[in-house]
């Protein structure tokens, strides 16, 4: 065990692992590009749907159950299938990642909207805000913490699933894991796993840190 640990340490301290197109910075960058592009596209699709369902109250059943469906979908299977059916390129991988990130964001956005106090919404309409103004001035700010939580969960999920890109011959942090396993180089695989875990945790923490300053001040109950 101690020996393995030393080997992993050696891997991390080897200079050539940190430079060039296969180096750690490049692979972290590639992985983040996959994840961020897929999450942003998914958010552009999911958030309007969630807001629409939340504002009108129509389609609530769909919004509530979508995340369950998303959870049940075997993500690697979906990515591999998309890749195999439509042309062995990055595009189907992106499509699959987007597909997997949409449900949880729709559900959370809807949940945030549904949690807006009925009286507050009623009063907003009652003092003369139009439907559009109610949405942007009242509902969205109040639902924001949950919407953001949905984006965060989706991001982490996409980061995890994006490792499959390496399995299919592309880059990203899955590269070290799959190469390590294929070459029976356990140290490399473990180093890759550590990197993957660190990147995911760091991203999660960064998004959590963003959550607080982006929450409207009146909703931060702690400053009572």
């Amino acid at each position: 065990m101690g020996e393995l640990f030393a080997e992993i340490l050696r891997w991390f301290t080897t200079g050539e692992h940190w430079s060039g197109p296969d180096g750690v910075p490049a692979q972290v960058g590639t992985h983040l590009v996959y994840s961020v592009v897929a999450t942003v596209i998914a958010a552009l699709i999911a958030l309007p749907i969630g807001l629409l369902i939340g504002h009108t109250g129509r389609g609530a059943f769909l919004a509530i159950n979508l995340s369950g469906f998303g959870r049940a979908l075997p993500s690697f299977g979906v990515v591999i299938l998309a890749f195999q059916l439509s042309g062995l390129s990055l595009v189907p991988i992106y499509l699959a990642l987007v597909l997997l990130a949409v449900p949880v964001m729709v559900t959370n956005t809807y949940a945030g909207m549904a949690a807006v106090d009925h009286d507050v919404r009623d009063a907003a309409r009652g003092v003369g805000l139009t439907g559009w103004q109610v949405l942007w001035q009242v509902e969205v700010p109040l639902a924001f913490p949950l919407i953001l939580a949905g984006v965060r969960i989706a991001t982490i999920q996409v980061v995890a699933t994006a490792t499959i890109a390496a399995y299919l011959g592309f880059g990203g942090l899955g590269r070290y894991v799959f190469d390590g396993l294929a070459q029976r180089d356990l140290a490399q695989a473990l180093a890759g796993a550590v990197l993957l875990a660190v990147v995911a945790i760091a991203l999660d923490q960064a998004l959590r840190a963003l959550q607080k300053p982006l929450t409207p001040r009146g909703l931060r109950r702690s400053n009572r």
Partner: protein
Amino acid sequence: MISFDAVNKRFDDGTTAVHELDLEVPEGEITVLVGSSGCGKTTTLRMVNRMLDATSGVIRIDGRDVREIAGSTLRRDIGYVIQQSGLFPHRTVADNIATVPKLLGWDKKRVRDRVEELMATVGLAADLGRRYPHQLSGGQQQRVGVARALAADPPILLMDEPFGAVDPVVRALLQDELLRLQAELRKTIVFVTHDIDEAVKLGDRIAVFRTGGHLVQFSTPAQLLTHPVDEFVADFLGAERGLKLLSLATLEDVPVRPTTTAREADESGGDEWVLVLSDQDTPLGWRSSSDRALIPAHGLSGGDSLLAGLDATVSSPTGLAVRVDAAGRYVGVSDQRAINESATRFRSEVLVP
């Protein structure tokens, strides 16, 4: 003036909330819609500012069909106060009050001045403006709700059980302040409550609704208490109708006579009860020689109700209500018989319409 002309409201699930309603809400008065839950009073209120639209019939404000006006435009000219106040939790108190003025595009300075003025009007300290709603007490939140509704000085105010969620002491205070504000502002107020005492206290006119959205009686509080149209209304008014009536008449015309008074420092003489006054002539309480303890007495002015007078005579050891002037200085006492005579006179005035 708001008028309802043969208004019906049926919901999609088939329930009739309002049935063939004809009602004229007079300008500059408080009209209270009262009834048990599910009687259609809130639905009636919400049709005025088109939070709901009538299934049939016409609602007019100053002769104009409300359905000719876009909902949000209409609502900016009508104040709206609901239970729990419905304040925006993500906006400061000042921003909450400024909602409608900002919608109407007032300039910043005008908005700020108006907010400041309104906070004073509803009795909120200016420094609360920067707080968030959850940092205020229930009573304070309700005041903010009223201030927000008054912000653009709308001629009409709709209030849906605005004081339903605050404790009785604060509720009484808020009711008194609403009456004080109304004496000044003379808005056309439609007020929904299920509490008949609140209705009698606040209403210039009361509309009693029965389940199924039927308006059963629409009259002044005094008429309602003396002439309930049927058993249902009589039941709804409750057991103490007579006493409620007394709450509508004042002590103004009840004769005052003198009684023995003493200063706090005086030694009292005989066995008689004496009324102890402070150096400023405000009544402190009753004292007898056999018992040095002071039984507190609260002075009543001409504006207080006959009910309060009667209550004072019953709870005083001498059977006398202590009377004071507007400044709270002692002027004399009234006995139970004098109050009873006034009550009888008042009753006969109401009985002969």
